[in-house]
């Protein structure tokens, strides 16, 4: 009867109660949505590279190495010589190694020189391999494979010619050696989507007439001659390594870090990602705190609604008192009512979250490469609902205590 009367009382004030529940529902949906995007972004971040045991580059910071080698953010401070690369590649612990050469760009996209092995060993999102959406992996010196975002942004299709610029944001173009798009990769949600991939030899080829970052005046080697040249790279930017056995990872890492010929750095991608996430984490915590404040605001709105309803409900409370209800019962009823509103609000929030996810999931995936998984409500969601109900009970104590005092003062007779 108590529950039924409480529900009937709420239903009688359907409009204001509905608004309150909607406000709580939206705030809870926002909170859970931020949480979802946060974990999704974190997972997506961690999914950028998978299956690689070590990343090798010139000695700098581990986050910096991770940023330029995997995320194509920032630049390498130094290169790794081809000899060092060969030395490491020849070590018995190394199962596979993929060289990466960066430094050129095409429009706003980075150009990456690598080998066929990149397509075999680069994995993302729990071991998924790259796949071609159109065309084939490059087999000619002047072939290129482009990421999905490059293709859509610049409107390229297979067999289109492209010209690579020297450096980044540069006006100097390698006009003498135009490339041909041989294949377009499927969308991955990783920086590969925004990369133009060419062979290591191609990187050498376009720099034949260049020295110390500038074109040698008057020199222009014909393409036929370049094709006949020895195009072994002199240096690489970084390398991805897979080890024979996971047990050897640390030994290899130590050996590379103590490599006597050249200062090198080997990092574990997972550890560096954690470190990087630790930096990004502050913003993420701030976002979560803001959305938690929105929930608090909605609950305070509920408190205001209960407050403003007290006056018109004094008659109701007087009836309860006349029928033998204690002031504490009146207090309990108001708190219970608030908890019901908070619970309905929180449940509405969860429903809105799922509705939102179903609608937004494909859009967010294609627009941002961010995959938001739709899972059954977890313990976390249950805790959020319980937390909102408990917080609702706490904030409702303020108007409920006022109702308590009013009902003590009024008794059964309302004094105006």
């Amino acid at each position: 009867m108590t529950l039924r009367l409480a529900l009937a009382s709420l239903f009688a004030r359907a409009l204001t109660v509905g608004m309150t529940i909607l406000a709580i529902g939206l705030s809870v949906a926002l909170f859970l949505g931020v949480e979802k995007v946060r974990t999704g972004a974190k997972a997506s971040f961690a999914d950028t590279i998978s299956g690689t045991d070590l990343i090798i580059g010139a000695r700098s910071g581990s986050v910096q190495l991770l940023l330029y080698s995997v995320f194509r953010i920032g630049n390498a401070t130094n290169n790794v010589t081809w000899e060092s690369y060969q030395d490491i590649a020849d070590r018995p612990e190394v199962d596979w190694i993929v060289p990466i050469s960066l430094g050129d760009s095409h429009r706003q996209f980075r150009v990456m020189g690598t080998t066929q092995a990149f397509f075999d060993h680069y994995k993302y999102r729990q071991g998924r391999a790259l796949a071609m959406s159109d065309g084939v992996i490059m087999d000619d010196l002047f072939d290129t494979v482009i990421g999905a975002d490059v293709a859509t942004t610049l409107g390229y299709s297979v067999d289109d010619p492209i010209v690579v610029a020297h450096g980044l944001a540069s006006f100097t173009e390698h006009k003498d050696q135009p490339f041909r798009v041989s294949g377009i990769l499927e969308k991955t949600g990783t920086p590969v989507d925004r990369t133009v991939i060419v062979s290591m030899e191609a990187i050498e080829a376009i720099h034949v007439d260049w020295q110390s970052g500038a074109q040698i005046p008057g020199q222009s080697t014909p393409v036929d001659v370049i094709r006949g040249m020895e195009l072994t790279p002199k240096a690489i930017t970084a390398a991805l390594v897979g080890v024979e056995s996971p047990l050897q990872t640390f030994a290899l890492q130590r050996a590379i870090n103590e490599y006597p010929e050249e200062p090198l750095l080997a990092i574990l991608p997972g550890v560096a990602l954690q470190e990087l996430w630790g930096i990004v984490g502050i913003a993420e915590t701030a976002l979560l705190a803001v959305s938690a404040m929105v929930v608090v605001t909605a609950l305070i709105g509920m408190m205001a609604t209960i407050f403003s309803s007290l006056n018109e409900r004094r008659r109701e409370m007087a009836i309860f008192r006349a029928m033998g209800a204690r002031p504490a019962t009146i207090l309990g009823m108001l708190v219970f009512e608030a908890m019901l509103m908070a619970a309905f609000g929180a449940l509405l929030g969860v429903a809105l979250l799922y509705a939102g996810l179903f609608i937004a999931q494909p859009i967010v995936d294609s627009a941002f490469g961010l995959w938001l998984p739709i899972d059954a409500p977890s313990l976390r969601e249950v805790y959020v609902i319980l937390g909102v109900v408990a917080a609702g009970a706490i904030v409702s104590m303020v108007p409920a205590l006022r109702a308590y005092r009013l009902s003590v003062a009024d008794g059964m007779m309302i004094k105006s």
Partner: protein
Amino acid sequence: MQVGDAVLALSKVAYRWPGRTAFSLTVPDLSVAKGESVLLLGESGSGKSTLLSLICGTVLPDRGTVKVAGTNIAGLSGAARDRFRAEQIGVIFQQFNLLPFGSVVDNILLPLRFAPERRARAGHAASEAANLCTALGLPTDITQAKANTLSVGQQQRVAVARALIGQPPLIVADEPTSALDANSQVAFLDLLFAQTATHGTSLLMVSHDPRLGERFDRVISMEDIALIERAAA
């Protein structure tokens, strides 16, 4: 009148409004016997509401005793007094007696929630409520209707059913007919008296209308039983 038979007995009661020292109420002696119906006449501002609050135990006298069914209610704790009120007294207001969002049967059964003994006395509460509705001339299908869909006359009769259920020894009514027109007043009182007679319930009704007096066993006026002191403002 023997005090032992009194359902209600006030003796040397004095009450001063907190914060309003200029206003105080004294009731030297007032009693209502078992089965007796008493009309208490008084103009507004004569202290009627305060007297009812003293009888129902929502305010306590500064001095003197208020006994309901032989129990001095000042001797009870606040929570026990609230339960005692639910057990012993049926209350009918002037108007707005019912929870508008509750059904008729919800409203009738409301005092039983707070009074386990009275609930036990009522037996099968839902059918008891239906019987009372029938006896009070309400349509039989009314019990599930929402209280705010009823006419004022119907609402007052539901309030009577609520006061009567579980047979409390005393019914306190605060101008229950003032919201009704003359014809409805007569019909209402007929039904009320028939029910209090059937159950042997004492009735204390407060009103400003002396014309109702002839139907009661006894008519007293506030001026005769109570002394109001107002300091010159």
